[in-house]
Every structure is written in C-alpha cells, then in structure tokens.
C-alpha cells in the first residue's frame, strides 16, 4: 500500500522543499537578509559620517558606556535564553520553552527600558535629530543616531510582542494593553516615548487579529522561527554598540 502511494503521480508532482528546510524558516531567513541590508545602509551612513568628520561629537561618557554594556549583556543573555527555549521546544518540553521565552522577553524589556533612559538623557542634554550641543558643524549626528538606534529599538519592541504572541497567545493581549497604558500615561508629553508607546497599541491590535482570526497552538518550528528573528535583533546590536557608542566615547 505504501509503495502504491509512493509511486502515485500526485506525490511526484510535489518538489522537495528548498534547502530541505521548513518554508516558515526559509521565509524568516529571507526577511532577515532584507532587513540586514536596511540596517547595513544605516550603519554605513553613520560610520561614513563618523570617519569623515574630525569634529564628530563624542557624547558618550563612562555612564553611557556602562549602560550600553549592560544593555549588550541583556541582549546576549536573551539570545542564550532564546536558544535554550528553542532547544526545549525541539525536545517537546513546551512548558520549559515558554518559561525560556518569558525570560527572553524580560531581558528584552530591560534592554528597551535602559535604552529609553539613554535617549532621555541625551535629549535633556539638547540632542535632537537636527542639532546637537557638542558640535554645531555636524548636524547629521542626531539624525543618524536616532534613526539607527530608534530602528533597532523598534525591532526589539516588536520582537518582545512577537515572542509574547508565541509564548502566551491570547493571554498576552490584556498584558500588552496594560503595558501600553502604563508607557503612555507615565511618560511626559514632551517625551518621544509618550507617542512611541502607541507601537504597543498597534502591536496589540495586530496580535489580536492574528490570534483571533487564525488561532493555533504554536509548535517547535514557530518557536525556532521567532528565535531567528530575536537572534537577528541581537546580532544587529553587536554592530551598533561598537560603531555608535564605542567609536564616540568621551573618556579621557
């Protein structure tokens, strides 16, 4: 019976999957490649400005470097917890996988909070996308800095939302809405995070649409695909941290 099925013309009509891997995984890899080029362009734009301007501002003192180092530790550790979650899911230990995903989300949230504190400090010193208080002749510093780090912060935020969908499913929506309200109401109207908090609301709307219109139990492959995205976000920071922060230190 099995031989009959194997030689049926309908079976032969299907090609083996590309690279003998899951199509969802391949799709995420293709997204990561396109996103790499976006970040690559932003990083090269920043680095071009940095090395072609002798008067490039050096705003990052020891406290900034320490904070950015802790943020790097958070992201690297979140990659470890993520990969342990993927391994647990691969072994069928789904509750352990969910716990690792929650740890990853917690570390990612810690990264976002520290990064927001870093931005707030720089904004209070007078940094805007169009001017900076350290080098009036280099107005592009603020623009390149906020675009690059803001784009990355957005990716980390979306990553936390994505992992929440995979780990908690519908239970994640009310938590996300509470986080949105807290972020919106607790930040002053002058802060960019007062408006940036609406990303959480948009995330909650999109996550609700996915979870209610296409409900499913996420499996090991889904966790692995979400892991690919999370590691990519970590990987991008491995370039932003040295090229943006360490290349512009104000340490004597």
């Amino acid at each position, binding site marked *: 019976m099995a031989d009959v099925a194997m030689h049926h013309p309908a079976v032969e009509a299907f090609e083996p999957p590309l690279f003998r891997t899951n199509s969802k995984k391949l799709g995420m890899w293709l997204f990561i490649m396109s996103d790499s080029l976006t970040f690559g*362009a932003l990083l090269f734009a920043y680095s071009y400005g940095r*090395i*072609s301007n002798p008067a490039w501002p050096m705003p990052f003192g020891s406290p900034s470097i320490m904070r950015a180092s802790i943020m790097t530790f958070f992201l*690297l550790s979140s990659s470890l917890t993520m990969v342990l979650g993927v391994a647990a899911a691969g072994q069928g230990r789904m509750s352990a996988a969910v716990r690792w995903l929650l740890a990853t989300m917690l570390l990612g949230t810690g990264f976002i909070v520290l990064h927001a504190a870093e931005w707030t400090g720089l904004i209070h010193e007078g940094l805007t996308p169009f001017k900076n208080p350290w080098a009036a002749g280099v107005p592009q510093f603020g623009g390149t800095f906020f675009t690059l780090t803001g784009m990355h912060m957005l990716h980390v935020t979306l990553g936390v939302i994505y992992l929440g969908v995979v780990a908690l499913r519908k239970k994640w929506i009310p938590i996300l809405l509470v986080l949105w309200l807290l972020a919106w109401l607790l930040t002053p109207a002058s802060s960019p995070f007062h408006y940036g908090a609406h990303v959480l609301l948009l995330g909650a709307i999109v996550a609700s649409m996915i979870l209610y219109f296409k409900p499913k139990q996420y499996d090991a492959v889904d966790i692995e695909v979400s892991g690919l995205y999370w*590691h990519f976000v970590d990987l991008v920071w491995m370039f932003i941290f*040295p090229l943006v922060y360490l*290349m512009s230190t104000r340490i004597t």
Partner: protein
Amino acid sequence: MAHGTPTATAEAHQPKAGQFFWVWGGLLILTAIEVYLGYQNMQPLKMLFILLGLSIIKSALIILYFMHMKFEIRSMRYVLMTALIVCLCLMTVFFADAARIISLGVR
C-alpha cells in the same frame, strides 16, 4: 531518500546545551575586549577596523550557533550567506570616500 528526511537530518546534528553557554561566554569576552578598546584613544579609522573585525566574529558565532546555520545543509549556508556578505561588502565602497575626505581635508 539517500540524504534522509529533513527532520532526521536536523535531529542528527542538534547542538548540546553546553555549547550555547560556551558561545555566550565567548560573546561576553569579545564584548569586554571591545569595551576595553573604547577606553583607549585610538585613531578612528584603525579603531573602526578593529571593532568591525570583532563584531564580524561575534555575528558569525551568533549566526552559526544561535541561529543554527552551522546545522543547516551546505547549499542553504552558501546561498544565503554569500548573497548577504556580497551585498554588505558593496556598501564598504563609501569608506574609501570617507577616508579621502579626511585625508585631503575636503569639506
């Protein structure tokens, strides 16, 4: 069927959890080296190349072990990574212009 099913192939090459801790430790050490270099007053172009080199090693570790690329089939590794590296290398053409500006004092 000579190559086995994708699931069987993947299961045969699953990394051990201890390996992830080693990679994490390596990444932390490389980050510590970068932070140390940040405290040295080096010439920007020299600093840029050293930091880029360390970042490339770190990203290779993340892609190979955390993103499991080491355990994918060879054709996937070569096709995806070659395309990405070539595209990113094309962007380095701008660095020559940045170096020209700083060397010749062009404004």
